[in-house]
């Protein structure tokens, strides 16, 4: 069968099982947009290419399937760079296809030419510039393989316009040809035994759970392992939901704005069983003072993570789900003796004491009647149906989202952890809703973030993708304001945004959403209940929250995790 390169691309995506792509057409990608009309693949027309990238990410994070975006060359390619960088940091499998100027024009500074593969080299797992239409099916197959296996991540295919128009003989490859790419998935048996032995001997162990557990679909296996070992668990910002918050062994999030107990348990631990986490600086605080007495078991599919920040006593390269299963087996076989729960009893008592003494707190009944952002998130969480997905922007609202929402399922918390990309929430929520139409999708967003990507709510309305946005309007770039207040002697520099410019309710309505404004605590629950009833349109609730509110606990940047600042709620105790 003789078809064009463009047809081959679309057909390859179909072969790959793609059901939806996010994109926006333009000159160099025009040939690809023609066969899209006839394809069963759903195309969602975004309003900005960054949105297409974050939607693909949201889709991938909600479904564990790769998200796909198609954009044109030059400015469109550079517009999607942020999303690629974001996906690279958080190991999210997305496949981005960019148009490129004709091969004969490459290197001539042709109209809308950008060196897309060059620009994205360090923020993709791999990228390809296709030079001949016959390569298309092979490259597409390889691109999806690379994106979804090993440590997942973004890949990019750059497709010149003449290659799209070129005729080729259709084929579908039955294998990939990647001699340099062979991710290791099974843990080494000797390391598994060594890990089992450390687990049995530890007196103050903690499970340190990262996003890798979610990417590998290992939550159920993890629960079995945790309950077998009876060891407390912390879930990082990327790992929220990998282990249920409602479980008695869950201590919540560690790190800069983690719970006192999660931070301190890690810090005082004698064994960190690290699964799919990477000792990020936001978790470790000052690395040289991090968990000084802890031995480290470190399981990661990416060998380069082992020993990158902290040397592991037992490093294990492998898919965390397989390794967990191997660990369970090793413990069952009783290789290093039976598990003795009594040796961790004192530790459990200590952890419980911390939880009682230093829970997450905020002013629940403020005398001035101000609306506390934490209260809003708490109500949202309580009123949300089970399995609701929460997407988030970046800033204070993100930390409150992570702290005060109860996550009980994997793939229900979608945020930008590694890159910290403002504006992530709205497009990511849309992508998640496309992937999981059966679930309610909320986004918690800041006023600063909202202004960066709100236009995608037009996409949501036009494409009938109903998402719900809780806009925590504190009239500030709040997280930056918090740092200026605490570390720059309250010298506020360029952080004020205004509460009513723009008028968020009018803006949301103009974009086809139902919109509400909430200014008092009394209105919070009834308005959320109203929003939860609306299923045919997107909803924006603007909450006028107390701008003075800061995120606590906090480990100041550069400090060790022994120096947790608990905040005003614990003053005078």
């Amino acid at each position: 069968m003789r078809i064009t390169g463009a047809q081959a691309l679309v057909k390859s995506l179909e072969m790959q099982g793609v059901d939806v792509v996010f994109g926006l057409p333009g000159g160099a990608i025009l040939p690809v947009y023609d066969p899209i009309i006839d394809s069963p693949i759903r195309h969602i027309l975004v309003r900005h290419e960054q949105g297409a990238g974050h939607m693909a990410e949201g889709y991938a994070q909600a479904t564990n399937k790769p998200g796909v975006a198609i954009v044109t060359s030059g400015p469109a390619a550079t517009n999607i760079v942020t999303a690629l960088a974001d996906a690279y940091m958080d190991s999210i499998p997305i496949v981005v296809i960019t148009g490129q100027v004709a091969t004969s024009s490459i290197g001539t500074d042709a109209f809308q030419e950008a060196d897309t593969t060059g620009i994205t080299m360090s923020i993709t797992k791999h990228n390809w510039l296709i030079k001949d239409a016959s390569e298309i099916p092979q490259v597409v197959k390889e691109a999806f393989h690379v994106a979804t296996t090993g440590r997942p991540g973004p890949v990019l295919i750059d497709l010149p316009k003449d290659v799209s128009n070129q005729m080729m003989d259709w084929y579908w490859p039955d294998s990939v040809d990647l001699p340099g790419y062979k991710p290791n998935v099974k843990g080494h048996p000797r390391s598994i035994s060594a890990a089992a032995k450390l687990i049995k001997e530890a007196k103050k162990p903690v499970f340190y759970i990262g996003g890798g557990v979610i990417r590998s679909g290992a939550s159920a296996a993890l629960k079995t392992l945790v309950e077998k070992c009876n060891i407390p668990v912390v879930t990082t910002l990327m790992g929220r939901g990998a282990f249920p918050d409602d479980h008695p062994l869950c201590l919540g999030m560690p790190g800069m704005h983690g719970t006192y107990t999660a931070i301190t348990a890690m810090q005082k631990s004698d064994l960190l069983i690290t699964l799919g986490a990477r000792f990020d600086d936001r978790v470790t605080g000052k690395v040289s003072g991090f968990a000084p007495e802890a031995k480290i078991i470190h399981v990661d599919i990416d060998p380069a993570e082992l020993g990158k920040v902290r040397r592991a006593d037992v490093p294990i390269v492998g898919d965390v789900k397989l390794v967990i299963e191997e660990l369970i087996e090793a413990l069952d076989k009783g290789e290093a003796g039976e598990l003795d729960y009594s040796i961790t009893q004192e530790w459990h008592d200590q952890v419980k004491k911390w939880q009682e003494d230093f829970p997450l707190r905020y002013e629940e009944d403020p005398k001035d009647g101000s609306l506390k952002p934490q209260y809003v998130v708490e109500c949202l969480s309580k009123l949300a149906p089970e399995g609701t997905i929460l997407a988030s922007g970046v800033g204070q609202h993100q930390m409150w989202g992570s702290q005060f929402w109860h996550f009980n399922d994997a793939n229900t918390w979608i945020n930008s952890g590694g890159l910290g990309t403002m504006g992530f929430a709205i497009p990511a929520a849309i992508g998640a809703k496309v992937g999981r139409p059966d679930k309610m999708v909320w986004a918690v967003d800041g006023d600063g973030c909202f202004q960066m990507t709100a236009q995608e709510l037009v996409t949501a309305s036009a494409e009938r993708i109903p998402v719900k946005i809780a806009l925590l309007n504190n009239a500030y770039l709040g997280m930056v304001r918090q740092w200026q207040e605490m570390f720059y002697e309250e010298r506020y520099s360029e952080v004020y945004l205004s509460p009513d410019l723009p008028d968020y309710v009018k803006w949301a309505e103009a974009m086809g959403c139902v919109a509400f404004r909430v200014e008092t605590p009394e209105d919070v629950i009834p308005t959320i209940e109203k929003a939860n009833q609306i299923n045919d349109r997107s909803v924006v609730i603007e909450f006028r929250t107390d701008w003075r509110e800061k995120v606590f606990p906090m480990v100041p940047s550069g400090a060790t995790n022994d120096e947790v600042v608990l905040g005003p709620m614990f003053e005078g105790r």
Partner: protein
Amino acid sequence: MTNASPNLIPMSMPGGKSSTEFGYHVLSVLVENKAGVLARVAQLFSRRGYSIYSLAVAPTDDERFSRLTVVVDLESVTLEQITKQLHKLINVIKITEIDPRESVQQELLLAIVAADTQSRSQIMELAGIFGAKVIDVGLERLTLALADTPDRLDDFTGLIKVFGIIEVQRTGRVALTKLARPSTRGGMNRGKAS
């Protein structure tokens, strides 16, 4: 005060040019012979803040592959981390660290030296001692070529400097693991650098 953990990765390490633990290391990297591979390797080094001391690239006898010989300067990261990051590049097939004691290494030097009638014969004599070739002759200048170990090139450069070097160009080293051969004392004699 907390004690620093024994598991800590040192963030900066002593420099130095000679030791095998830190300092210069030679990596032989087999890569797929695809467009942009060199850029990927170079960008990885710059993005992660590793420094390349020298780099030589050429196709192997199998045209699908090329071999890069990279001399890396370990200032702030471990060789292990560099190797692991390199391995993450999809086009990288195999990485071998080449131990200077277990390898043969050669580098090519071209040098234009000031050579008037007085110094010319001295320069030629020196070239003869080192086994360098005169590959170009001008009225007041000579161009010399020498292929040898990097140390010998350093040595040679030091000596011809006296006469006045106009321009020097070096290729960066290429290296291969030494051949194993039966020892007279039994076992494998890995040989000593001569």
